[in-house]
């Protein structure tokens, strides 16, 4: 797989006018995202992850270094709209990214902007609504929908533009558990079945555990960049930068600390339950063995 987004030595700082001490967000950062990957970016507030995400579709430009999207340099103004068609972005608050007063009109918004002919807009909009599973609400007003449905409308608006990559900035932060599940299911489907590259910024570790790759950021630099299994086995390091691990991983970690042998790369609840069962069986078998030996010795 080739690199779809490539950041080379980028630095960025928020500078107020004539401010002698601009706030450095990150410095000399490298990151590559491959086509078809699903990458989670973790990090506590202020670690620079949202700022980084905004570099991926040329909303922000690096002060130094460069970012290429599918080979296109984001600093090239002529390619701006090509880049934004390739990399769609979904934000935290669904209310603040829906423009129109009818669901299908909103999904059509991006396509109207890039001048797609009306008949094709129609088919693409219906297709996008179908893919996120909200076809039945297409004539509704957005404010009548639930948070999860609204966020899926926002995602539909992006996928209607047929991007090859979607960057989601905490898409589930404002949703209830049911809404979070709906949205995560949609995102996973887009990645697994439609080959869309996903970059998801999240505070939920169980969401990160479902990705192919996890990048942990801390005060503007990349701390770890590896598979979820590997990343979450560094429980102590994650905790030191203010992050958590999935509950299943935490149980295994704590049991390990208490002297029971448990694998450290457990991520899913099912996996954890299996391991716990094995542990119980092992302990029980050991106890029985000890009891047998004891009775023999008598």
């Amino acid at each position, binding site marked *: 797989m080739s690199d779809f987004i490539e950041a080379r030595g980028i630095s960025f700082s928020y500078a107020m006018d004539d401010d002698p001490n601009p706030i450095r967000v990150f410095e000399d950062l490298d990151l590559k995202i491959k086509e078809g990957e699903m990458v989670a970016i973790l990090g506590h507030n202020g670690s620079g992850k949202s700022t980084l995400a905004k570099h991926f579709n040329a909303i922000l430009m690096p002060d130094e270094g460069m970012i290429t999207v599918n080979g296109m340099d984001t600093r090239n103004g002529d390619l701006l*709209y090509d880049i*934004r068609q390739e990399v*769609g972005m979904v934000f935290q608050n669904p209310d603040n990214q829906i423009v129109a*007063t009818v669901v299908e009109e909103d999904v*059509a918004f*991006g396509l109207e902007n890039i001048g797609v002919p009306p008949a094709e807009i129609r088919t693409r909009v219906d297709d996008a609504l179908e893919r996120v599973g909200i076809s039945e609400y297409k004539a509704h007003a957005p404010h009548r929908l639930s948070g999860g449905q609204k966020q899926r409308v926002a995602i539909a608006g992006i996928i209607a533009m047929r991007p090859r990559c979607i960057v989601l900035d905490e898409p589930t932060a404002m949703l209830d558990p049911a809404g979070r599940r709906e949205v995560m299911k949609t995102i996973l489907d887009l990645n697994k079945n439609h080959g869309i590259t996903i970059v998801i910024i999240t505070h939920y570790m169980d969401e990160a555990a479902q990705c192919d790759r996890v990048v942990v950021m801390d005060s503007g630099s990349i701390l770890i960049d590896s598979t979820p299994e590997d990343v979450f086995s560094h429980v102590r390091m994650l905790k030191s930068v203010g992050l958590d691990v999935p509950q299943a991983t935490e149980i295994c970690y704590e049991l390990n600390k208490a002297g029971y042998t448990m694998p450290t790369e457990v991520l899913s609840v099912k996996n954890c339950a299996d391991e716990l069962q094995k542990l119980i069986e092992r302990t029980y078998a050991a106890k029985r063995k000890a009891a047998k030996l004891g009775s023999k010795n008598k």
Partner: protein
Amino acid sequence: MLKDITIGQFFPGDSFIHKMDPRMKIIATLLYIIMLFVASHPLSLIVGILLLVLLYQVSGIPLKMVTKSLKPVVPVILFTSVLNIFFVSGEALFKFFFITITKEGLTLAILMSLRILCLIAGSSLLTYTTSPIELTDAIERLLNPLKKFKVPVHELSMMMTIALRFIPTLIEETDKIINAQKARGADMESGGLMQRAKALVPILIPLFVSSFRRADELAMAMECRCYRGGDGRTRMKQLKYGHRDWIALAVMVLCIAAVLLLNHILG
């Protein structure tokens, strides 16, 4: 609570009028208004009244809605009627001390009252049968020729759409802020006018701050979706005049002709 406020007065339906092209509805409404002012005799106005009754029948808008829309104009009608009856000079019908009621005054009063009633009921029909989004859309397209004179038609209609989109969101937010301030002991129900106005400050300030934040986020989301103004933009829904619209136009033109004829006959 605040959530129950309906925006506009759209009354969803499936009638001939609902299905008309919103542009033609606006044009027809303008023609109707012209017709009302062309009619110079109360009897010529009968055409307008009959047409109105017919249109409301076709649209399936309940009569209750019509009376509701007419209620606020009753004082205006009374006021103009009184002025017309007592202060227009002409052939006296009735004299009592200094009060003179003239034939011309009476005619004019009836004419004006009917005109105002028809005007309000007629233009209400437009907003009853057309959703706000259709209206903005139609206005944008009707005003499109003005773009040549550097009128920012697309921008204005985009602003209208966004305003309509955010009214329910902001109403919900206002509700939340009011509750939050009440929970902190804010008193909004008692006191005089000044005190109540002052009590609004802690609601308006957070509302403004959050509106600016929303505007900022919305602008970024729009940029991410390649928004760059009206140039080169296409629309998913194309408006097309159908046979319905031509029938409506023909009816309006015929009615205006009928009014002119009646004017001529009645002198």
